[in-house]
């Protein structure tokens, strides 16, 4: 069959559905049939599945002209999706086309949810198209004889590649691809990505730099411009607007009004605790929502989440309060309105959420923005501008992630074993490990075989062994089992399953939260009031609490987001407008706040940098306002604290938000001295950051994930009570042991590197310092805290930095005695 005949089949099918293929779909079919690899830039719900599934089928038809009568068995294509929830939709879409065209092609799913029976069925008879996750793909690489499964595979599709890029799951995918390229040399690789700032790089990471695949590739853009309307929820009276807080419940009536006026509304919150609290508050104030409203976040049981997703599709729900758990995928046609509570911090995320509404072609997406405190209204008007100018962020890919490499190599050793020379070449061709040296490689091999770089006589380390023919292999069954159970690159906080006494799984909450509870305490989780009965074997047993019981909301660590570089820039521009006559409605609503701010201090202009100082009974506060986002401020705070601490022995506690940062001390800080010593210079930045205690603290947190991924920590078997006695320990302790005894360990160094590249964003820091240097410093000594400072100084999550000796500090402290 020639190209035209194949295309006729595709067009005929579209015709029969009453559809017309989009230009991007035809372009993709063409490129695919020409044997090209590529990246398709298209949003969810645009027909991207058929852009790739159609040519996969056409390719099969071409090779098997007798396809209607005789089915050729074996895996043809793998479809990787980052979200299990998406796999069902893809399966349905793919099956529909396969059946209509009488191809006889079958579609199967393999994720963490897939039953063991189904898995073993797949082992003997693979479906033609396998939909799976990056983790499940790795697990397949951990099973014996995996090369036979993949050898005839013609296509690999990586869906939502933008979600994986810039994460360690992305690195895991790169590694998996490097292996499959070698096993199935005829395989085409295609990615699908939403719009991000660095699409070209996304293609390069997917295919490997300078590879033949990359040479023979194409980037196709769908050019679907969706109209998005952003509406800020501004109360009539601004004097009640809180200066701080992150719940936004003062606007609950406005939210209820919007929910009532719309078919289905998604209410996005930034963190799970906020999600729980909003759900509860809405139910209490508007009992009529009961039954029409649901909650969706990552810690709620999978069954409940799937039920909620189906109920949205069936238009059974008026409103769903959710977190980023509903950011991705799943096509919810009935969703008419989206409400974003609190700053989304990034343009891309905001656009994605806005895009959850008005899914029908031509329909406008409507998103309401609810600022939780006064200053956040500035973000609202900045977002409006962003949407108009379609500014989007980059996703920065990881480099030299040794933890993921260690895990990958043990995975290969667990299945068929590997020969280092072969694998080295494959890995060197990936984006992540393109700069890996032979020394690095030798280090990693030593690490998995000897657990160190030199051999000691009495040492009993055992993991990967080297066979006589040079093959690296895991022989111990328990090592293999432990490795399979712990594979993956997403490291959450330690969680415990919440179950009813009489059975029935509700979801999971973090261990540290449970540890604060005593039997009989009542907490709110998954929208229910639950009484703790007892905790046993990583399980929290609960029963229903009386509705009148006093309860606390379950809370989760982490999840704090930072303003992206693009958003910070927009926020600054908006703020500077406050000193002009051209003001957005949001800024005008903020006039009373600006007035109060100007009473003590100023609203800075475009060429000014504001510093405020004042004293409260907590001590001496110094607040700097770079407006660069939380992470950059975290680094700047640490840097400034360190540089000041060189001038005098002093201890600071540091706080920061997206607008500025605070140095709080029990001693007076002479700002004139700070200015005279020119402490804002970008020179020696790296050196100074490394010396600030804060960098160590951050690296400690990064190391936690790294140590789990690299298999340095045994986290226990999920959901199983297996004896792991004497093998568990905190990652804190492990960090300290490495810092004290193996400071040159590559995994430890990686923790610091990730801190500088991904957390402290060194590149952004230098730009910020250069900008501040070009500004006029406005130091405002104030009598009282200003509206700008308020959300920062009341932040309880703090870091510290000190140039006093430990003994000096202890002498000024008291032990935390129980009253």
């Amino acid at each position, binding site marked *: 069959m020639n190209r035209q005949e194949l295309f006729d089949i595709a067009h005929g099918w579209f015709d029969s559905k009453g559809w017309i293929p989009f230009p991007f779909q035809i372009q993709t079919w063409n490129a695919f049939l020409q044997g090209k690899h590529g990246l398709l830039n298209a949003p969810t719900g645009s027909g991207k599945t058929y852009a790739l599934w159609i040519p996969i089928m056409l390719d099969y038809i071409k090779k098997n002209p007798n396809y209607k009568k005789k089915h050729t068995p074996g895996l043809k294509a793998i479809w990787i999706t980052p979200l299990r929830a998406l796999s069902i939709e893809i399966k349905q879409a793919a099956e529909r086309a396969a059946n209509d065209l009488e191809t006889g092609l079958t579609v199967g799913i393999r994720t963490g949810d897939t039953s063991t029976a189904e898995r073993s069925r797949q082992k003997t008879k693979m479906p033609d198209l396998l939909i799976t996750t990056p983790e499940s793909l790795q697990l397949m690489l951990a099973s014996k004889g995996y090369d036979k499964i993949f050898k005839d595979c013609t296509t690999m599709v990586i869906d939502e590649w933008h979600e994986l890029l810039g994460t360690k799951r992305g690195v895991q995918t790169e590694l998996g691809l490097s292996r499959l390229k070698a096993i199935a040399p005829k395989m085409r690789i295609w990615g699908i990505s939403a719009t991000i700032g660095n699409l070209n790089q996304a293609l390069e990471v997917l295919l490997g730099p300078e590879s033949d695949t990359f040479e023979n590739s194409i980037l196709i853009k769908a050019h679907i411009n969706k109209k998005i309307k952003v509406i800020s929820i501004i109360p009539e009276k601004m004097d009640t607007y809180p200066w701080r807080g992150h719940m936004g419940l003062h606007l609950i009536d406005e939210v209820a009004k919007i929910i009532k006026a719309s078919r289905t509304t998604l209410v996005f919150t930034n963190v799970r605790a906020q999600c729980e609290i909003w759900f509860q508050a809405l139910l209490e104030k508007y009992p009529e929502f009961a039954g029409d409203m649901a909650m969706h976040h990552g810690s709620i049981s999978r069954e409940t989440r799937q039920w909620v997703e189906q109920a949205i599709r069936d238009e059974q729900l008026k409103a769903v309060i959710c977190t980023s758990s509903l950011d991705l995928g799943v096509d919810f046609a009935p969703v008419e309105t989206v409400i974003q509570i609190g700053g989304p911090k990034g343009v891309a995320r905001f656009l994605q959420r806005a895009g959850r509404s008005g899914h029908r072609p031509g329909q406008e997406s409507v998103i309401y923005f609810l600022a939780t405190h006064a200053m956040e209204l500035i973000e609202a008007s900045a977002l409006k501008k962003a949407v108009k100018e379609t500014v989007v962020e980059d996703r920065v890919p990881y480099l030299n992630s040794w933890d993921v490499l260690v895990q990958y190599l043990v995975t290969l050793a667990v299945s068929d074993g590997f020969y280092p020379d072969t694998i080295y070449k494959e890995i060197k061709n990936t984006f992540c490990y393109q700069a890996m040296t032979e020394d690095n490689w030798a280090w990693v091999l030593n690490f998995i075989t000897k657990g160190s770089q030199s051999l000691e006589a009495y040492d009993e380390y055992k993991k990967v062994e080297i066979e006589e023919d040079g093959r690296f292999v895991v022989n111990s069954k328990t090592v293999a089992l432990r490795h399979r159970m712990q594979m993956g690159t997403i490291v959450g906080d330690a969680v415990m399953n919440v179950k009813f006494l009489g059975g029935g799984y509700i979801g999971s909450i973090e261990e540290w939260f449970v540890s604060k509870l005593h039997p009989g305490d009542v907490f709110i989780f998954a929208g229910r009031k639950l009484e703790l009965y007892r905790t046993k074997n990583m399980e929290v047993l609960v029963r229903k609490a009386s509705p009148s019981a006093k309860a606390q909301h379950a809370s989760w660590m982490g999840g704090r987001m930072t303003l992206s570089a693009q958003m910070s820039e927009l926020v600054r521009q908006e703020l500077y407008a406050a000193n002009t006559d051209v003001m957005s409605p949001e800024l005008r609503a903020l006039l009373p706040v600006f007035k109060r701010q100007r009473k003590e201090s100023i609203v800075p202009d475009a060429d000014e940098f504001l510093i405020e100082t004042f004293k409260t009974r907590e001590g001496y506060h110094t607040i700097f306002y770079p407006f660069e986002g939380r992470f950059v401020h975290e680094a700047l705070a640490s840097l400034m604290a360190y540089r000041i601490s060189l001038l005098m022995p002093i201890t600071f506690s540091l706080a920061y938000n997206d607008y500025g940062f605070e140095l709080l001390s029990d001693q007076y800080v002479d700002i004139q001295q700070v200015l005279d010593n020119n402490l804002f210079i970008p020179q020696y930045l790296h050196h100074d950051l490394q010396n600030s205690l804060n960098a160590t603290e951050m690296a400690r947190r990064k190391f936690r994930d790294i140590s789990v991924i690299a298999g340095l920590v045994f986290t226990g078997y999920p959901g199983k009570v297996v004896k792991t006695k004497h093998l568990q320990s905190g990652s804190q302790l492990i960090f300290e042991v490495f810092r004290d005894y193996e400071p040159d360990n590559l995994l430890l160094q990686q923790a610091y590197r990730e801190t500088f590249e991904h957390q402290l964003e060194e590149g952004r820091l230098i730009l910020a310092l250069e900008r501040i240097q070009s500004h006029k410093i406005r130091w405002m000594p104030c009598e009282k805290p200003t509206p700008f400072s308020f959300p920062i100084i009341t932040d309880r999550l703090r870091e510290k930095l000190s140039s006093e000796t430990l003994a000096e500090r202890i002498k000024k402290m008291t032990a*935390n005695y129980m009253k």
Partner: protein
Amino acid sequence: MTLQIEINNQVFVLHNTGALYWVEKRMLLISDVHLGKISHFRKHGLALPIGAIFKNFSKLDKVIDHFSPEKICFLGDLFHSSLNNEWHLFSDWVNRTELSIILVAGNHDVINPEKYNDLNIKVVSEWVIENFLLIHDPKVRDGLFTFSGHIHPSVRLIGKGRQFLKLSCFFRSSNQMILPAFGEFTGTYVMQPKDDDVVYVVTKEDIIMMKADGK
């Protein structure tokens, strides 16, 4: 580096390694060394630094040099888990020190007492000596002052400017003193002292007695 205190008319010296020296008896009390922990992890494929293994022994040598005791009493959890090659390092150390050693066994001490006996180490479940009780798991008994371990006590310190510190400590209540864990690579448990408890925090250089809030 040390701090001298008196209990029941006996003199004790607290050392910042976590060891405690009983002057009249010329005896060192040391708790929760957890020898073999690193080796145990490594044996199971968790690649912790080998270097950390030796630190426990050099720390032991350091306190012995400092006090020149006649005997050592380990207050339990001397070894972290079942037998591994670290035992050879331990027996070498025992032969080198030539001190009399007593082990008050703890919950982690699962190694056969015969092995200890071969090294001339006496293993007991508790030891009453004059009006003092030496035991692993904290327990108060009438008329006796207890020295114990097991808990790995630490304490949270609070200062102005919202400063916090968590430090390992000796934890003393009216009839008991809980020793900090001596071993490297052992975690701590944060205690909540009451008004009449006394806390001696240990740092790399010092040992400092803490005041209570508002006292």
